[in-house]
């Protein structure tokens, strides 16, 4: 079914993001309008997902150009789940922003960049065209380049230079890969690519192109050999920006892999997907080692992004309906809990006036609520039942075991334990014991409220898994059989 509804999750943040550029001096109006826009966008995404799950996927052929020729936007089950998750994160970020975004940040276009980031991420989830995926990657990266530099401190410049250069390089590689793919298959439409890849004779070249694309997405998603830019550059900006990055940016890389390697490059599973499982295993190990190696609170959380990405890749590598469902479940869970943890870490650092764990202690007396929220968030992150991390991990590990990937599953189990250890270390170090130093700043209520909402969602995702699982399973089922997507988009 054709509908302009598909365009709205991109259009609303894009339009208001552009509009807000002109109001950067009007603090109060900007904050209020942004909140309304986020609510509106959330409402639209909720309606879109309801519509897609009850009436089937929606497409929009922009400008009336028929499917393989024009730019096409597709909202299938996976896309709307992701769009909904993005809008939940945006909503809680807007709540967190109420007390954490300073006048100076608003003046330096925090809100326009925030909305452009949301627009870019939503676009990447909705597009049905590989080149357009690159364009939306650029939109969200440009917004992130702006966001990472807001504040303009010395170390922010230092770390963001590397972040930007690396992302730029991977973007150029992306364009080059699209050109390769175009010359071999003669199309950039994902559905038509999925169809043609099976017909083209030169399977070897296609596998090579697939691996090139994997390198691009692995850079964006911070997988094993290409992760080194992530931890430091994620901790330098303001906590709300770190939370947005941690929750959204790497997940776009994972989503792209999920889409591309189920729809287009699924012809040489034994080669590519076995490779993925090894990369996933090493990523988990390296991420956990990083998280254990530092006593900087923000850095511990930033390193914890990597094992999570490893888990999701494990699901893609295993490539069964169950493990793909696990990947999607884990993706949504991780977006919520990473944002919550970055929020809480930011609050903790403000409260303590330092991010060094060794200088903290005893804050359970001054901030009991935050302490216990941090504890629950740690349990959720590590995947202690009955929280949401458990459901995703259970599906992933059972999927991996069923397919005989015992080493990867074992490493996954071990790394979960070490993840728990690394975050509980923050809880013990910062909240137990005697009060070492008086807190520098009081807690910010809106920050606590935003984290509480996200933690509540995570708990709900875990306890109410029976309600959510059918939707996730339906999305995974549509991924495992790409013909549904192809037929739908090309309308044969």
């Amino acid at each position, binding site marked *: 079914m054709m509908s302009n509804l598909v365009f709205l999750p991109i259009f609303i943040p894009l339009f208001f993001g552009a509009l807000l550029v002109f109001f950067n001096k009007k603090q109060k109006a900007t904050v209020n309008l942004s909140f309304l826009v986020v609510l509106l966008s959330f409402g639209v995404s909720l309606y879109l997902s309801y519509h897609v799950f009850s009436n089937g996927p929606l497409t929009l052929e922009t400008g009336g150009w028929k499917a393989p020729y024009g730019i096409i936007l597709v909202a299938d089950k996976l896309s709307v789940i992701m769009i909904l998750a993005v809008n939940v994160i945006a909503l809680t970020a807007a709540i967190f922003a109420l007390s954490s975004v300073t006048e100076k940040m608003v003046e330096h276009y925090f809100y326009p960049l925030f909305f452009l980031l949301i627009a870019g991420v939503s676009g990447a989830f909705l597009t049905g065209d590989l080149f357009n995926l690159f*364009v939306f990657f650029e939109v969200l990266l440009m917004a992130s380049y702006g966001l990472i530099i807001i504040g303009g401190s010395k170390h922010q410049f230092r770390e963001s230079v590397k972040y930007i250069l690396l992302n730029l*390089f991977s973007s150029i590689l992306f364009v080059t890969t699209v050109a390769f793919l175009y010359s071999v298959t003669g199309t950039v439409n994902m559905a038509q690519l999925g169809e043609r890849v099976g017909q083209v004779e030169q399977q070897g070249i296609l596998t090579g192109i697939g691996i090139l694309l994997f390198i691009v997405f692995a850079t964006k998603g911070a997988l094993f050999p290409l992760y080194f830019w992530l931890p430091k550059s994620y901790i330098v900006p303001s906590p709300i920006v770190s939370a947005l990055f941690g929750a959204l940016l790497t997940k776009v890389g994972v989503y792209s892999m999920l889409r591309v390697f189920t729809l287009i490059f699924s012809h040489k599973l034994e080669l590519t997907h076995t490779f993925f499982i090894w990369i996933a295993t090493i990523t988990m190990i390296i991420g956990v080692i990083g998280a254990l190696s530092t006593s900087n609170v923000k850095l511990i959380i930033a390193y914890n992004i990597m094992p999570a990405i490893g888990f999701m890749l494990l699901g893609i590598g295993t490539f069964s309906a169950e493990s793909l469902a696990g990947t999607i479940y884990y993706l949504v869970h991780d977006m919520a809990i990473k944002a919550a943890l970055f929020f809480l870490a930011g609050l903790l650092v403000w409260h303590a006036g330092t991010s*060094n764990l060794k200088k903290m202690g005893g804050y359970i007396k001054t901030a009991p609520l935050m302490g216990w929220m941090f504890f629950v968030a740690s349990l959720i992150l590590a995947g202690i039942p009955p929280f949401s991390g458990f459901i995703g991990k259970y599906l992933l590990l059972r999927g991996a075991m069923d397919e005989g990937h015992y080493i990867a599953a074992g490493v996954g189990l071990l790394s979960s334990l070490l993840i728990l250890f690394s975050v509980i270390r923050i809880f013990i170090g910062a909240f137990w014991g005697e009060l070492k130093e008086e807190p520098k700043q009081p807690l910010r209520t809106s920050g606590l409220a935003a984290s509480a909402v996200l933690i509540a969602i995570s708990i709900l995702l875990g306890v109410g898994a029976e309600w959510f699982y059918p939707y996730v399973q339906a999305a995974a089922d549509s991924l495992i059989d790409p013909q549904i997507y192809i037929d739908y988009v090309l309308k044969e």
Partner: protein
Amino acid sequence: MEILMSILAGTLFAAGVYLILQKQLLKIVLGTALLSHGAHLFILTMGKLNRGKPPILIEGVKNYTDPLPQALILTSIVISFGVTSFLLVLAYRTYQSNKTDMMDQLRGTDDE
């Protein structure tokens, strides 16, 4: 013609990669600019070069150039303009606040 263009694109890529591996920030920015030019040429080459033909498909016209690579390049050029200008400003501001433009001095582990 395609061979020549491929060699040119390859040269641009090589020069770009060489510049990116330098220590000075400005050279790195120039390297990214060269790399994106290489990528654009590459897209054009991959869409098969047809000189002097219109990039339009009208009924009856058999000889036309594939318009898609040109549309892709146009988008990609605009993006790379934006990113390059941003990078130049960023490089300047980084130099100002860190008092150096050498990459090996731009690392550090200040645990604040």
